[in-house]
């Protein structure tokens, strides 16, 4: 077993475990912390894929910004443990979950049946993950989208301020 495979297995198992804790914990703070752990594990997985820039952004944006916001709101609302974990079960919900499982089994079986003996990563992959490669792509090929994301963030700022305001002016 190669070192990369060992690393993949450790990170993969931990990321699945932390994801399960996230959705099954009664205490929202525990969920949030498990999610932060999950993000760190994913960041490690990105490193095994030679995507350095994405790995760093993962920690900065998700763990550093989004989860801080989530934990802040949990603290602000002063939420306790949930007594009842899930909603009432009805037919539609059960069907939806069964459907999700069927989908997942299909996915996994497709991946397993297609498993090749040897994998091949192109030489260019190591360079593609660097800030230089992504920056060049971002400011040439995807310039318009980069501008558009500014509108998205502006909309989010204005919208969040509007919704969180207390009184009607």
């Amino acid at each position, binding site marked *: 077993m190669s070192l990369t*495979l060992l690393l*993949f297995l450790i990170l993969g198992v931990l990321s*699945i475990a932390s*994801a399960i804790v*996230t*959705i099954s914990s009664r205490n*929202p703070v525990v969920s949030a912390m498990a*999610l932060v752990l999950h993000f760190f594990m994913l960041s490690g*997985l*990105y490193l*095994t*894929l030679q*995507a350095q*820039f*994405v790995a760093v*952004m*993962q920690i900065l944006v*998700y763990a550093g910004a*989004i989860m801080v*916001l*989530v934990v802040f*709101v*949990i603290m602000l*609302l002063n939420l306790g443990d*949930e007594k*009842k*974990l899930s*909603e*009432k079960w009805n037919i539609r*919900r059960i069907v939806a*979950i069964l459907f999700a*499982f069927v*989908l*997942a089994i299909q996915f*996994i079986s497709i*991946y397993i049946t*297609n*498993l*090749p003996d*040897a*994998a*091949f*990563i192109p*030489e*260019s992959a190591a360079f*593609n993950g660097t800030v230089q*490669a*992504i920056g060049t792509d971002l400011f040439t*090929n995807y310039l318009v*989208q980069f501008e558009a994301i500014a509108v*998205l*963030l502006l909309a*989010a*700022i204005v*919208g*969040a*301020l509007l*919704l*969180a305001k*207390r009184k009607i002016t």
Partner: protein
Amino acid sequence: MINAIPLEYYLGLASIIFLIGTVGVLVRRNAIIVFMSIELMLNSVNLTFVGFSTYLGDTAGQVFVFFVMAVAAAEAAIGLAIVLALFRNKQTIYVDEVNVLKW
């Protein structure tokens, strides 16, 4: 570079995380945890993108991940603002207690 891990390992892992996220959205009643489950789903997509990007030797997938992160941040801001506004109105964030409109 022969002897790397097959891409399908990453895709399989991503689909398992995606499923966990989906189940979280469908089952949990706390709006914030539902939101975190959605983040799980988006992250599994990011893993898929990076996996494809590396194995195709193409940067576009990683650029897309960058944009997904920006969108996730914007959604976090809006979503939590909505949860706050809901809590001010109804003192609850449990989605099954929010039922003025028929679900």
